[in-house]
């Protein structure tokens, strides 16, 4: 019985091993590249911070179409506080459905600020989200759970962002 059993399972075993080896080869061919160099990482961070910086400017009123009453996002959300980006998507009671952060941003632009909504896929919206998420870096992602006001990272007084006068919470 033992001999028969071995001969019955051997072809299957060989097939599994072969497929596994092939799989490893394919994975190697398509897996992530070698780690980025310091220079590449610096370039990536620079690109990100440029977008964050644009978001900071928008957050503080650089695009007049986003407000008809003088209010900017920063009026209620200094350092993006209480914007709660890490809690989206979540149910928004007055809209009656689950929405992503960008829809909440457009709600704030159009209702409290009386402005014109941003293109949800446009560069400005990406920058707005980048700013909010950057200020909440390291916070635990908790979709749907913002029943309490949340806070961004704590920034020391007077610690600024590389761009003069930005005031973004960049605490390196």
């Amino acid at each position: 019985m033992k001999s028969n059993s071995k001969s019955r399972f051997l072809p299957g075993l060989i097939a599994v091993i072969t497929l596994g080896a092939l799989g490893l080869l394919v994975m190697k061919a398509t897996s992530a590249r070698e780690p980025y160099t310091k220079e590449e990482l610096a370039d990536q961070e620079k690109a990100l911070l440029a977008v964050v910086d644009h978001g900071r400017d928008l957050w503080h009123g650089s695009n007049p179409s986003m407000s008809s009453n003088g209010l900017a996002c920063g009026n209620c959300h200094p350092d993006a506080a209480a914007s709660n980006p890490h809690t989206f998507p979540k149910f928004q009671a007055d809209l009656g459905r689950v929405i992503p952060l960008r829809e909440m941003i457009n709600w704030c632009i159009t209702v409290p600020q009386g402005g014109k909504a941003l293109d949800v896929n446009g560069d400005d919206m990406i920058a707005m989200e980048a700013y909010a998420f950057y200020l909440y870096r390291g916070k635990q992602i908790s979709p749907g759970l913002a029943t309490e006001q949340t806070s961004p990272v704590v920034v020391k007084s007077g610690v600024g962002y590389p761009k003069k006068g930005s005031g973004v919470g960049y605490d390196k």
Partner: protein
Amino acid sequence: MAAQGGSPNRGGEMEDFKNLSRRDFVTISGRAGLTTLVATALGINLGLVRVVTGAAPGKKMTPFRFAILTDAHLFSIEGHKFDAFLAQAVDNVNNMKPRPDFVVYCGDIAQNGRDDQLQKGVKILSKLAMPIHYIPGEHDWYLDLGEAWRGHFGKPTWSFDHKGVHFIGMNSILVRDFWTPAGMTPKQRMDTMEMLESPIAGPWGVREEQLDWLKKDVKGLGTEAPVVVFTHSPLWDYYPRWNFQTEDAPEVREILGKFERVMSFHGHVHQTVYNKIGNLSSVGTLSTSWPWPYPDVKLAYPDMRMNRSDPALVEDGDGTQHIDLETDFQGTMHYDPFGDMLKPAIKDGFKI
């Protein structure tokens, strides 16, 4: 010039300024001497500082009520929603029973420091049925370094006695001169100060001249005297990045340290908040514009936090407040929000 109902020094020298035009006032201010000129060069224009004292406050006092309005942040736009919020606040105070003896305005009438915004505030606040006393906020001040504000409201540093209590108002939003080296225009200076989290201006303070004034102001008062002090920013380090602080608050507290009890009320934070340091109870106030979020700071009295405001309710998080002072200087703080947003610990008032 001043809003109907009076100025910070009823019956005192401030009466002299009531009938002056703004031009006259500026002329008089120009005679204030080298001290003021130096202060102006440093961005510290205090205006005319005169100590006015009434009957010496004693331990026993007559119970009364006063109210605080603050942070209207009026825009120049006609019919702006914040105009209506401030008008609502005025109605609420006028309809209180009993009515407050007076109101203190804790700064930031204007959003961009423009005279038309201050004028709008004067017009709305003139409907108050009782006297009002003013201190400035940074939004009132940094377009013209307080010139228009002083033209409307007189000096930002004052004191008066009322029913046995000594009241003090000070300008706590004075900063170093960051604009001259940078070659900024007045508007750029104002824009810089408008941004709560801007690191450029640095910390606010009352500065040396007002500290000297304060020492003189309280010198003749006994330790049992009831003292109440108003500033735009808190007299403790709450969250310096947003200037939820006053840099020389320790010096202020030291000068006031001789009193058995001091009550401190401040604007700027747009929220309910309470702290107690030594003999000083510090109470934050609701604005009539928008609520600021709470910074990520562990508060000594977390029960005093208000509920998270609902952005779908346009007035949520805003309101007024009043304080009932009883004999022996016992006080009860009442927040009077436009909406239902108070937690149980502060819903029916709390002792300060």
